[in-house]
């Protein structure tokens, strides 16, 4: 060793583990003892939950039976009245959301209009329908309309009537429910749509205008598709919320999923199992909607994020192929990060 101090010798001269060469040392990861404790607590709680849900028994009226009576749940899960209730629930959800989105778009455009009468009336609508409970609105449409107007007519304002209908036959509980939920949803959706529209850069409208695109076309093909990225997540929220809000039609004698299970349990007194039936169905449809939302969001992310997030299936396939998550690629390898010009 005749090298002068500070001058590195050839690599072979440094033995493994010798001080000063970190590349050959063993790495000791940070320990997280509390993670283990918390994980253990959660495991115990999950075990307790599974036990009480599936394996615990209880004595009721001298008969020993499963605590949650899953057999009863299974018996009523696909019962005809329950299935009819599901149809009503889904119909109301779809009608209210489709109408709500359409009303919402119209109201949002009105609110953004420079015309004060248009923006003012949209404001008034939103103020009224957000300001009263939806339960009150539903009751009003069901009871109030036929009380206030025994006959509904279609014709010239202050002039002759063309069509006259009897309110009580026209406004069934389903019609009142669909009407009330749609009008109420429209008020909420309009704020969501408005947020989406104002999130789109003004330069987009200007660029469209400079190409000679009229306002309506610009809204439909340039602004709204971009606003969708902002609009979709809260709309998914609203749809899931609506699925469950439809259960309010039970107060105006609508027979939805919840009311269907309620009327069964009022005759057989199996209250909890039938609540389970309703809950399981609601959970199922919420899950379907959540999955649907993921794909719709992904669709509207085109052009917004440079690479689309993988779908769960793609992620599963990838993890099966590699056994573990692929290492992050260095930025320089990804062609779109450093575009050549």
């Amino acid at each position, binding site marked *: 060793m005749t090298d002068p101090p500070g001058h590195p010798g050839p690599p072979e001269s440094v033995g493994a583990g010798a001080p000063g060469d970190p590349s050959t040392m063993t790495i000791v990861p940070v320990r997280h003892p509390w993670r283990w404790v918390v994980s253990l607590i959660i495991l115990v709680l999950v075990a307790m939950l599974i036990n009480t849900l599936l394996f615990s028994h209880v004595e009721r009226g001298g008969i020993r039976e499963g605590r949650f009576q899953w057999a009863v749940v299974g018996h009523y899960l696909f019962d005809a009245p329950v299935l009819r209730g599901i149809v009503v629930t889904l119909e109301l959800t779809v009608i209210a959301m489709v109408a709500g989105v359409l009303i919402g778009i119209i109201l949002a455009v009105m609110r953004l209009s420079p015309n004060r009468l248009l923006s003012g009336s949209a404001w008034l609508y939103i103020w009224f329908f957000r300001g009263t409970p939806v339960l009150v609105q539903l009751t009003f449409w069901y009871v109030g309309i036929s009380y206030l107007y025994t006959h509904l007519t279609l014709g010239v304002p202050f002039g002759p009537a063309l069509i006259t209908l009897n309110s009580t036959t026209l406004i069934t509980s389903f019609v009142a429910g669909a009407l009330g939920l749609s009008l109420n949803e429209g008020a909420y959706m309009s704020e969501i749509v408005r947020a989406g529209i104002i999130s789109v*850069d003004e330069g*987009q409208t200007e660029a469209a205008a400079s*190409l000679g695109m009229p306002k309506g076309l610009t809204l439909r093909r340039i602004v709204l598709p971009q606003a969708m990225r902002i609009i979709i997540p809260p709309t998914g929220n609203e749809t899931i919320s609506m699925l469950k809000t439809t259960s309010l039609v039970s107060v105006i004698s609508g027979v939805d999923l919840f009311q269907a299970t309620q009327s069964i349990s009022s005759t057989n007194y199996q209250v909890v199992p039938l609540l389970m039936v309703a809950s399981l169905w609601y959970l199922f449809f919420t899950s379907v909607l959540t999955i649907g939302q993921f794909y719709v969001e992904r669709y509207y992310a085109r052009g917004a994020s440079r690479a689309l997030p993988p779908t769960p299936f793609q992620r599963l396939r990838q993890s099966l192929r590699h056994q573990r998550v692929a290492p992050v690629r260095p930025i320089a390898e990804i062609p779109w990060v450093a575009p050549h010009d």
Partner: protein
Amino acid sequence: MTDPSSVAATRGLEHPMVEARNVHKAYGRLEVLKGIDMQVHRGEVLCLIGPSGSGKSTFLRCINHLEKIDGGQLSVDGELVGYRQQGNRLYELKDKEVCRKRAEIGMVFQRFNLFPHMSVLDNITSGPMWVKKASGGPSRDRAHQLLERVGLIDKVDAYPNQLSGGQQQRVAIARALAMDPKLMLFDEPTSALDPELVGDVLDVMRSLAHDGMTMIVVTHEIGFAREVGDTVVFMDGGVVVEQGDPVQVLTDPRHERTQAFLAKVL
């Protein structure tokens, strides 16, 4: 001028492409344009320079009616912008008519403003197909030609955010050209670009100028203005301070304010 018929033919096109007379514009109390007079002739490249806030961009935006003028007269190709003259009255144009006139004027923005949810191809064909109702096949062929021209034929299916700023701006130029405009407006087209990307965009604009396109370019690229511009207009505080031949205005400015501005940017 020995052939009288050719004189008559040019007479018919004698009105300038853009003519501004005493154009005024104010936002509330803030007067942005205080009486602009300007003429841009067919095939002319006019470069507008001046400090920020001088009203260059506002004036440019008035030409395709993105901004409404408050006073004076502004006409494109012999027709008033935003109004129709009938006898002694000016009728404000309907939305549809404004759109039809805008479709004849291309505009390129500082921030590109490509439509991010559409591919490069769809960005370029959107104008011809949706506004001019042209059919898809020819529009796509034309888009390919234009992309070839701006050197981005390999990006036809890319989305705008997969492109660099310079590439986006060249697509934006192609998008404007797809409408076959008779006039192109450039609003600081290179100001948002990294220095090394400016050249490609200027090259495209230079070739457009050589092909005889009438162009109004708001720019800070003094070199470009000197080389490509037929006229340079220096604006400051909402008025035209000086205008004329680029070499004269840029190398031997008469006005103090022009001298001060050029001393800062050169």
